[in-house]
């Protein structure tokens, strides 16, 4: 009995997800250039948010230096493409491998020496800032002048991952769908249960025989690798990368806004949060420009973060789910009362 109802709600969840992404695909087919470019960023940051969400929402490790992995991905794609003419597909793969390795080393070093919690978060910031400054002073990767690899207009080549804004919209849509489905699958897999166990109580998980150290390294490494893939595509969409723009603190903050606003540890949260926060950021930026107040978008982001943690600490998406559940609850309540009466 329980099992069939689980399966039914499963089908419902996947069906709802498929519907949302089908609707987004239709939006991509119809909208104008501005909406397309805005939604591309929203979807890319949905994917990046999923990667960050995996690490904190499921694995329990706070990173405020995800820009490091985003930057590694973007630079791997750009350098292979510009200097050696290699397709971005290889670049994405290589970037993911390098970032996964860097993430694993960072996690290994810090968790080995019991650097945890706040200290680990600060270590990620330091690593990202160190890399940003190093890349700025490294001529091979273009230094502070950055790298330019804008696609020539009119190209449309899936093999080289090059195309117009609409093409990248669908690339980002595919990534976001993979991110949402992947989070859902991982969080129900063996790893998902292990990671949540060590997130909630490290010692209890160890007492049950989970090698939490390995799993922490693993979750950081996977999160880093996926962030690099998102970063590689982000660089392609922008057509130019600079250490300050792709590895700066601003990227690390942008990455975490979607999942925090939408709902930590949930599969849909990063999508909902990015949908809510990024258009707001752009609108406030435009409003600020027209009013001559350049910091308005930053104020809006800050206020949203504080208010969400204050009033909706689980994020928007769980609140929506609760609301929906509350509407349905009376019916369910009746059924369970009936059952009790039968017994």
């Amino acid at each position, binding site marked *: 009995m329980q099992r069939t109802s689980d399966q039914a709600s499963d089908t419902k969840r996947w069906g709802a997800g498929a519907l949302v992404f089908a609707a987004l695909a239709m939006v991509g087919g119809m909208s104008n250039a501005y909406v397309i470019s805005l939604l591309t960023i929203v979807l890319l940051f949905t994917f990046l948010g999923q990667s960050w969400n995996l690490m904190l929402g499921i694995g329990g490790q706070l990173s405020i230096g995800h820009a490091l992995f985003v930057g590694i991905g973007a630079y791997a794609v750009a350098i292979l493409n510009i200097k050696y003419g290699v397709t971005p597909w290889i670049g994405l793969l290589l970037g993911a491998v390098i970032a996964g390795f860097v993430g694993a080393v960072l996690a290994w070093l810090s968790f080995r*020496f019991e650097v945890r919690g706040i200290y680990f978060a600060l*270590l990620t910031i330091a690593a990202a800032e160190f890399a940003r400054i190093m890349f700025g*002073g490294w001529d091979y990767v273009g230094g502070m002048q950055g790298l330019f690899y804008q696609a020539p207009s009119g190209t449309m080549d899936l093999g080289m991952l090059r195309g117009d804004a609409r093409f990248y919209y669908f690339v980002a849509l595919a990534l976001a769908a993979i991110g949402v489905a992947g989070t859902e699958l991982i969080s129900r897999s063996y790893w998902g249960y292990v990671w949540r166990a060590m997130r909630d109580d490290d010692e209890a998980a160890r007492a049950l025989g989970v090698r939490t150290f390995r799993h922490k390294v693993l979750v950081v490494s996977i999160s880093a690798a996926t962030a690099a893939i998102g970063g590689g595509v982000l660089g392609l969409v922008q057509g130019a990368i600079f250490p300050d723009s792709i590895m700066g603190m601003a990227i690390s903050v942008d990455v975490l806004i979607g999942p925090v606003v939408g709902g930590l540890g949930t599969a849909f949260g990063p999508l909902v949060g990015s949908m809510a926060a990024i258009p707001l950021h752009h609108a406030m930026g435009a409003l600020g420009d027209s009013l001559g107040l350049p910091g308005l978008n930053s*104020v809006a982001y800050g206020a949203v973060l504080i208010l969400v943690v204050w009033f909706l600490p689980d994020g928007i998406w769980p609140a929506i789910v609760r609301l929906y559940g509350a509407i349905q609850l009376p019916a369910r309540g009746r059924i369970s009362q009936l059952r009790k009466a039968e017994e």
Partner: protein
Amino acid sequence: MLSLWLNVIAGGVLIGLVYGLVALGLTIIFGVMRVVNFAHGEMVVFGIYIGYWTVRIWDVPIFLAAAVAAVVMFVFGYLLETLVVKRFVNRPHHYQFIVFIGLSLLFSGVLLMSFGPDPRPTASQLSFQTVSVGPLTLDWARIQAAATAGLLIAALGAYLKYSAFGRSLRGAANNRLGGLVVGLNIPRVYAVTFGIGAACAGVAGALISPLFDAQPYLAVDFTLLAFVTVIVGGLGSFGGALLGGLTIGVAEAIAALMFTPSMKTALPYALLIIILILRPRGFFGAKDI
């Protein structure tokens, strides 16, 4: 050559004292309340603007500008704690961190709105005066800043050690529950602590206003610098913050002399990574996070 090195190291020590004051603010807040003030750099920049405007309008010496910054920023920190931070003190660490990232975005946005993105050169007569002592030639502005910072650090240390309030503050830092049991007014201790922390940042900002062009974007650098300093010394340790400040100040000065200027900015982070890996709690860090 020797005198060049001596000059560089002396300059590093002087600026290191100011870094120490910035870090002290961060470490006091962390030590007592166990929250990491991610908006600390913004508070330093508030101090820089306060210093800039006070000196420009009233043409007072820099230590008076620092006094103004201390009062304004203490009130600011006190109010911020009672209105906002208080609600998050007992939340998990990552929520606190995110709230402070929000505050930092909010403040830097307000700074941008109020003063615009362009740097304001604050160079005054003071910035160019030098003093010669033996082989040393030192900025007068740096000497004043370092002397004021040093005096303040000493005064704050004595206050925390000997005054009744200082004792209750240290009690709250050691054992919050115990403090509640013996009847400490914990909410008030927290608010005052946050005020003191903000005042440290503000004073340090006002003191260095003749040395740095006032600019909103400086905030991130100062936040990270304060983190690095505090971690090097050990989060929550008074002496550690001072030692960390001096270490970073001298290391930066030497790096700027030996390597390229970009190495100067990268060095603190490299130092932080090394220290976190070799000695995660810093020189005198708190046992527990």
